[in-house]
């Protein structure tokens, strides 16, 4: 069995859980550090999604180990909470400056209502050679999958 691993990092466990549930339909494991879900692609290939907590006081994640292990990263934060993005910034800095990590920064917007131009909401923007900034609604499977798809397409671009 071949396994691709993707880490979903963010300050809010509930959003990561909803994101994984939207993509995988089911949560396999959830504790204070990790939320885990599987997306079978075929009988030989599966995607593992790890939601990793960045809450203050949560166990610290060993970035050095994670960075070389995962296919890519989804950095997820609620758009309405500017403070949550502040908590995510050091991780974003680290992934972008120290590792050539493929990532998508995803801003969760409930009900798809964002105070941004609709074109920006739909298409996002490129924030790094290996990264995009996008919007999504983690409760909507199509919207959550759009984020994952952007990550896979960035990986494919990188391989080309």
């Amino acid at each position: 069995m071949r396994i691709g691993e993707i880490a979903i990092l963010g300050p809010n466990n509930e959003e990561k859980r909803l994101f994984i549930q939207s993509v995988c339909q089911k949560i396999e494991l959830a504790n204070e550090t990790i939320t885990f879900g599987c997306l079978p692609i075929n009988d030989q290939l599966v995607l593992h999604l790890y939601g990793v907590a960045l809450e203050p006081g949560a166990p610290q994640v060993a970035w050095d180990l994670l960075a070389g292990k995962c296919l890519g990263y989804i950095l997820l934060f609620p758009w309405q909470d500017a403070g949550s993005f502040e908590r995510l910034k050091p991780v974003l800095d680290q992934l972008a400056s120290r590792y050539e990590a493929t990532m998508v920064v995803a801003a969760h917007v409930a009900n798809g209502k964002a105070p941004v131009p609709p074109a920006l909401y739909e298409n996002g923007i490129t924030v790094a050679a290996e990264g995009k900034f996008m919007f999504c609604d983690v409760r909507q499977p199509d919207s959550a999958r759009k984020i994952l798809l952007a990550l896979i397409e960035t990986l494919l671009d990188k391989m080309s």
Partner: protein
Amino acid sequence: MDRKKILIAEKDPKEVLELRKALVAAGYEVRIAANGPEALALVESFHPDLILAEMRLPQMDGPHLLQEIRNLPALQWLPFILAGSLKTLDERVSAMKLAVDDYLQKPFDPDETVARIDSLIREAGLRATTPDRQARGFGGSLGEMSLVDLLQTLEVGNKTAVVRLRHADKEGSVFIIDGQVVDAALDNLETRRALLRMFTWTEGAFHVEIRMHDRSRSLTASTRDLISEGMTRLYRWEQLSNQLPPLQSVVNVNGEAARAKLTDEEKGLLQLLRKNGSKRLIDLVEESQYDDLRALTVIKNLYERHVLKVLPWTENPNNGEPRAVLKPLHKNGHLASDLINDAFQATLKKPANSAPRPHDRRRVERRQEDRRKHDRRRDGQPDKNRIFLNKSELILIREKLL
């Protein structure tokens, strides 16, 4: 038949006593508000068919009451008359340039005023029953659907239409034939500049009339190119305006700072402040001879160097209260671009295939040095994020997600 309702906003009820009598005699139901906020409250409870407002109302003046009304999509076509005792022709013309239906000079002549109100109410009634207007159009808020979105929709539908936009105290129109933008009108601006300015309107109301019109093509660019330019400008406009106080803020020149070395563009822009001493930022942009984005960039530079100073609310020429109309600008204004800008800065990287800009060189070098130090700590092994699946496996995943 229901009596039509007139709301008069006037600080001194005695001044409109005669007018009120004349209106009631003509069959109207009349209410009087003593200030702007009271008028706004009555708009909600009384549902007037026409508003007659004094220019200089307490707490929220007439033009700002108008702006509040026009920002409500349901009331964008409500007849609105401004009244005042403006002395010069210039002042009266300026008042007429606001998105008002009429301007009346005080003191009122009751007969003339009733005649004008009759005429406006009749026009509004006709508009409401015109089939084109009622059945073959749609309207809404520019916050929910910008001009870019509207043009995309009309292009896809290959429609012939007139798009009317209202933003603050301005009203503009865009004319479309078979989905292609052919003409645009806003104040006395040249066609292209008028359209580009309306692209930056993210608040206000729109109304699309699906109908034939007699405008011919005066824009050469394709609608697709215009939309693309509009999206870029909208994004850049928001980036710049988020680095400034609300564009309705009034500024003047900080004398000491203005003695610093200024570019010709900056001097040209400050010249606009020489006459009255202070202006709203948005007026500076609109009156400037430069392109709107260029003007806003120059203003940002002047503001950052403290050459432009924002006047406290008490010094604003219009009134002494922070105006309700500015609340929406404060509420969401800085959130979108600030966060995206933070994301840009935090990644310390450039978009794919773009060369580093000169001023970023030091940052890139610092990042490379960080990486080298980190590599040394890890016994020379680079910290590359490896892709543990092959291309065909990634393609399978993509197929699954599509």
